[in-house]
């Protein structure tokens, strides 16, 4: 298993969002998180990436197993595309950035400063960063924002190649990537029960009380 999540509860700003989340990812599997805005998809991914502590529960993944890609791409505006990518490659102890540049079709842009890229091109560079991490588990938060249809297909192809090479991916996205092999997890059923004052249904959970 590349990732095992058991009875996980996460909170944002002191308010419990999700509880009882449990799933596992084996090599070659992809899981798409779905749910309305604010349900806690980003918070769940940040907890799994280790950026935020969990309220309860367990996240098991191999040490240095995951690469996280959030809403921001982590690009430096004054560095060129090739320099940005080479920096992240060296941080992860990799040397070769050529396959990542080819996979995201950035070859023609390699010497352009990142500040001159369009939003979609920046996103492609942000996703190319995943390819140079060499990590087996990808944690992707809205990876397709500002990508056009062709770029989404290109991204889906690199996810498929990653899965075929024994990797796994956990992503929060609202659009259909055309990944037939990906399972979907609807987070709505894990929504934390909040004991709003005066709700009047007689249900009071002491755990929720701590966050009310």
């Amino acid at each position, binding site marked *: 298993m590349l990732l095992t999540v058991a009875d996980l509860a996460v909170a944002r700003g002191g308010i419990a969002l999700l509880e009882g989340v449990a799933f596992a990812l084996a090599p070659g599997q992809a899981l798409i998180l779905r749910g309305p805005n604010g349900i806690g998809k980003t918070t769940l991914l940040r907890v799994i990436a280790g950026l935020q502590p969990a309220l309860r529960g367990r996240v098991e993944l191999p040490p240095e197993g995951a690469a996280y890609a959030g809403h921001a791409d982590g690009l430096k505006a*004054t560095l060129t595309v090739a320099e940005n990518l080479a920096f992240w490659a060296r941080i992860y102890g990799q040397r070769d950035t050529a396959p990542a540049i080819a996979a995201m079709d950035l070859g023609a842009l390699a010497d352009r400063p990142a500040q001159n890229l369009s939003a979609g091109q920046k996103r492609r560079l942000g996703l190319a960063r995943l390819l140079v991490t060499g990590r087996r588990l990808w944690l992707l938060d809205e990876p397709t924002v500002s990508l056009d249809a062709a770029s989404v297909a290109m991204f889906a192809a690199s996810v498929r190649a990653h899965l075929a090479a024994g990797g796994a991916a956990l992503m929060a996205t609202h659009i259909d990537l055309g990944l037939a092999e990906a399972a979907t997890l609807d987070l709505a059923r894990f929504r934390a029960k909040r004991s709003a004052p005066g709700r009047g249904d007689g249900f009071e959970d002491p755990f929720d009380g701590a966050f009310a």
Partner: protein
Amino acid sequence: MLALLLRDLRLATRAGGGFGLSLAFFLIVTVLVPFGVGPEGGTLARIAPGILWVGALLSCLLSLDRIFALDREDGSLDLLATAPIPLEGVVAVKAAAHWLTTGLPLTLAAPVLGVLLNLPEAAFSWLTLSLMLGTPALSMIGSFGAALTVGLKRGGLLLSLLVLPLYIPTLIFGAEAAKRGAEGLAAGTPLLMLAGITLGAVAILPFAAAAAIRVNLR
């Protein structure tokens, strides 16, 4: 680690990197002081070590909020926190990059600007030595302050208020060493205290700053 250092140095020297900002501020302070105090050579010579130290400290303060805030804004800090290098190492490397782009140029510029303040000849080497020993502490303490305020939008004011009291011991011993050197007295004790502050800051503060960043990333 080396990649991070090289990236920060490259970013600082590219357009908009803020490399010249501290140096320009230092120049302005030392040029303006003779106009404010008056051109009387004896007075200037007496206050020169202190003015140069205060100027260097304020110039250093000016560039602190860039250390982590820019990386936080573009998401790099999240990615560095999940990268295979320890966050303590990230802090230490970024403080080193700050010193190389701020403290070291200030140290090298100080004797030149000392001429404007009629700094006594005997004081030049002592001033350079004290700045060389003291400015790494300014960068390291400043990185800690920047780490504490990294989650705040426009946290520059809070950062200055937090860091200034922590800078005072460095300033006292640094300026004292330069002043004693200028007067031909033994400057060994303040220099040793200064080196102690720097070594202590470098040993302890990367851990404190990394802990502060972890809390602020939540």
